[in-house]
């Protein structure tokens, strides 16, 4: 691994990686069964530098912001390197957002440059919201058909001058490296300002537990804009000379094939996908003839016993050969993140000899705060704090549960353009996570709920009530407000979180079927994971501030007086 202590920026570290690991393979891109691209580090550098030069010639200077909206592919990483090389600030956006949401965040971030793919650009350029984002001056579009109308954009592929030799624009450790949106597309955008130091420090901490090396192959499935994939599917492997494999399709049949074809070492998944994988495997085990099933169960039991203290991959691969062969035979661990993973899912894979590296993190904290070190495997916890992380439990209840606060060189410098929210979130250098937890005697963190008004789905999506309230605007009631049910009625659970709609009826109004159906209709306009699960009718007007904003905390406290089960009316 490179010595990151000597580098002050992501760009400088990547530049050294390109030189030191020049002959190693850094990127493989496959579309279904076809391999489309295989680049060495040297070739990666040759692709990125002409783009960096073009950016500089177009007036892009150190500190300027450039956004990438792309699916997982080699051009994502090449573009990111070009931006960092030019001293730019990367704004990675989730390609799954709507065009209106994309333009909103592009405008909020102050991006001058947008790098995207043709199918996405086709929708972005046609969106009426484009007019509201005047700051984007340059758009580079990849993979556009020959006769495509680019609506003022340039072709990404046009910048292939092999002789381009721009100079690395140096940045300091405390300079902004990325603006990462942790949420807030519908309401208050939360643009986490991440510095170069945040990433350099996080990379050292993570690779001390889960190292990368030349020849290692990481399968990139989580979107690269996500903090986890950015770290373990780009910066982490690149600082160690490892290889990242991108698939242009996420159809399960091709993902399965990629494991065996490319002998994958690590993959990151969200809990929802991991659970689906578990279901699929369990169904196959259940189909085994009774005799074979008994033998299989015995082997699983032996493996469980043998790996109690720590993983023994060589043994697990022999005991459960067929299972491991299906994953390519070289899988070291599945990294799971984005949301809480249920202990039984973790145990299921560990018993098969496939360690699942779970942990706990927030974009605001620079990816991971705690990680399970597997010594021993503890499915009931989210692991121990990473090196360099100070974690404390504030105002603990008698059972030790309190709010988790974090202090580290990896914590963001604040929310973009939102000093008020920054001041609420970072207090004396401590990041208030809004999550509740406790430490056990072995120093493992147990999460047990949230203090903040939001939910996290199994797909790793953070949903804030403010982001979905617009769908209920003009609902024929006196007033309404959306809450996370566990925020109103604190519950010691990180799974099955739900949103509720609190309403106050007009004085002469009754809660009837017509109103219920109206709420249902509006609810169905939301994506399934954003939908509310019930309605609570309030007996009093909502408490409001002098400027007539709803005092959410006071209203939640009032609702908490009601019995949860009785108060929540089904839709």
């Amino acid at each position, binding site marked *: 691994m490179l010595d990151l202590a000597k580098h002050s920026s992501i760009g400088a570290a990547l530049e050294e990686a390109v030189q030191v690991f020049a002959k190693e393979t850094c990127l493989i891109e496959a579309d279904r069964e076809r391999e489309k691209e295989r680049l060495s580090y040297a070739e990666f550098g040759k692709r990125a530098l002409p783009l960096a030069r073009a950016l500089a010639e177009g007036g892009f200077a150190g500190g300027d912001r450039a956004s990438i909206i792309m699916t997982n592919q080699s051009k994502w990483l090449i573009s990111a390197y070009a931006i960092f090389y030019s001293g730019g600030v990367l704004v990675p956006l989730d390609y799954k957002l709507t065009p209106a949401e994309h333009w909103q965040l592009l405008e909020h971030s102050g991006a001058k440059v947008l790098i995207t793919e043709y199918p996405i650009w086709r929708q972005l350029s046609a969106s009426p919201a484009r007019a509201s984002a005047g700051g984007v001056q340059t758009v580079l579009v990849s993979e556009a058909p020959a006769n495509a109308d680019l609506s003022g954009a340039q072709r990404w592929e046009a910048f292939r001058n092999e002789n381009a030799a721009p100079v690395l624009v140096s940045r300091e450790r405390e300079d902004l490296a990325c603006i990462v949106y942790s949420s807030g597309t519908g309401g208050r955008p939360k643009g986490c300002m991440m510095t170069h130091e945040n990433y350099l420090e996080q990379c050292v901490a993570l690779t001390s537990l889960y190292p990368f090396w030349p020849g290692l192959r990481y399968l990139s499935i989580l979107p690269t804009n996500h903090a986890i994939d950015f770290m373990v599917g780009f910066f982490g492997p690149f600082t160690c000379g490892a290889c990242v494999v991108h698939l242009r399709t*996420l159809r399960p049949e091709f993902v399965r094939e990629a494991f065996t074809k490319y002998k994958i070492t690590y993959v990151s998944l969200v809990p929802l996908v991991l659970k689906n994988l578990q279901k699929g495997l369990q169904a196959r085990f259940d189909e085994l003839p009774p005799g074979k099933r008994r033998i299989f169960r015995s082997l699983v039991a032996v493996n469980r016993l043998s790996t109690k203290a720590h993983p023994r991959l060589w043994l697990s691969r022999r005991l459960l050969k067929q299972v491991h062969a299906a994953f390519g035979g070289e899988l070291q661990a599945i990294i799971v993140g984005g949301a809480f993973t249920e202990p039984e899912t973790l145990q299921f894979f560990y018993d098969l000899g496939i360690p699942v590296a779970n942990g706990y993190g927030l974009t605001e904290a620079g990816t991971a705060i705690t990680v399970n070190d597997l010594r021993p495997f503890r499915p009931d916890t989210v692991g121990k704090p990473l090196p360099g992380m100070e974690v404390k439990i504030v105002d603990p209840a008698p059972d030790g549960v309190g709010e988790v606060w974090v202090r580290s060189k990896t914590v963001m410098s604040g929310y973009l353009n939102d000093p008020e929210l920054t001041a609420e979130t970072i207090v004396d250098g401590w990041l208030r996570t809004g999550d509740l937890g406790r430490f056990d005697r072995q120093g493992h963190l147990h999460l047990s709920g949230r203090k903040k008004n939001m939910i996290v789905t199994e797909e790793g999506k953070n949903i804030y009530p403010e982001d979905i309230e617009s769908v209920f605007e003009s609902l024929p009631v006196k007033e309404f407000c959306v809450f996370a049910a566990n925020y109103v009625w604190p519950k010691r659970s990180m799974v099955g979180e739900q949103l509720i709609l609190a309403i106050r009826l007009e004085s002469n109004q009754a809660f009837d079927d017509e109103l219920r159906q109206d709420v249902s209709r509006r609810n169905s306009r939301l994506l399934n994971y954003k939908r509310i699960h019930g309605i609570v009718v309030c007996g009093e007007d909502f408490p409001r501030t002098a400027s007539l904003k709803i005092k959410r905390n006071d209203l939640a406290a009032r609702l908490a007086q009601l019995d949860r089960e009785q108060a929540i009316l089904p839709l």
Partner: protein
Amino acid sequence: MPTLENTTQEVLTLAEKHFNLAPGSLSPDDDFFKKLGIDSLQTLELLSRLESHFQIELPDYEVQGVSDFKTLAERIQSRL
């Protein structure tokens, strides 16, 4: 070659069968995420079924952001 209307109707019929819905319960402008309440994995399954029916290849990135049957049918039509 079938018309766009025919393709759209075939897409709707296949989606109804795939998700066990009554014939005629889906329409071209329906947002399939919202109407069916499906997640991205279930959408990929539907795409695989449509591909084998129409005998085309529909890259994930080509249908990225598409959420209604009409646009989906247009993307399929352009590859027939």
